[in-house]
């Protein structure tokens, strides 16, 4: 059975490219438009991986990661940040929040797929 990925990003075009790439690699993808939407969906359905943007309205990526890590069911689920932010300071915040990796946009489909395969084991 295909693993399911939650893709959280407020940019519709970015989500479209994520869905295209991850579906082509054999994964099921559920989209969320911001952190709050992502958290709602994650609470109601288990995901194998969460891929989230940082700068979003309502709830940003770091807040989403902290909220997810507070849920027992997401204590060990891999979470990757995919964002335009590239500073070491932000990466440190991501790591402290509980992210498993930090990917700077734009993403290359092959490299993204490799990383997803790696973190999903």
């Amino acid at each position, binding site marked *: 059975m295909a693993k399911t990925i939650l893709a959280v990003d407020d940019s519709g*075009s970015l989500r479209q490219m994520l869905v295209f790439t991850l579906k082509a690699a054999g994964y099921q993808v559920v989209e969320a438009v911001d952190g709050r939407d992502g958290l709602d969906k994650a609470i109601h359905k288990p995901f194998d991986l969460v891929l989230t943007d940082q700068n979003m309205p309502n709830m940003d990526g770091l807040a989403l990661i902290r909220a997810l890590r507070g849920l027992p069911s997401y204590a060990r689920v891999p979470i990757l940040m995919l964002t335009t932010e*590239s500073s070491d300071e932000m990466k440190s915040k*991501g790591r402290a929040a509980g992210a*498993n990796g930090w*990917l700077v*946009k734009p993403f*290359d*489909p092959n*490299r993204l797929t490799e990383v997803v395969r790696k973190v999903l084991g």
Partner: protein
Amino acid sequence: MKRQESGVLELGRLLTEVSVEGIAHLEEVQADLTQTRLLLAEAIARLSDGFSALHAAVSVQRAAAEQLQQQATGAGDGQAQLREAAAAIDTHVQAMVTALQFEDMTSQLIAHAGRRITGLQGILARVGDGAQGLAAGDLTQLDTLRAAMAAQSRELDGSLARSVDQRHLESGDITLF
């Protein structure tokens, strides 16, 4: 003394005009940015949809061509050509997926510019308020105005962290923790 008072009055009027004119021009810039954002959003929606449809059509065509090739006798050269074409298509698709992410970054930059313009309008409005005091001959307003402008400008800078430093559409770094 009268000359100095007259100068203060003139300065007050000038700053009032700068404030009014500046705010009006920035409203136009804001409208242009909004229009740019809308056009970009429509363009990326069409490009992304077109790209997905084109890719789906090419995939169907590729599968059909491979099937025909397998049925044909002595199809060695044709199969090699098909494999080369498929590899070339994959390379172009990867490049397009990376390039089509431009709207995510440009929309953030436009939003960032829009917030700075709104902040600048606030500063100019503050200048306009202070200038009315100057125009009424109150010279003490000058220092108050200067301090208020500096504080508002610092506050604006502090609230506008830059989140997009990319200058090219090349794939970014990956760090696994």
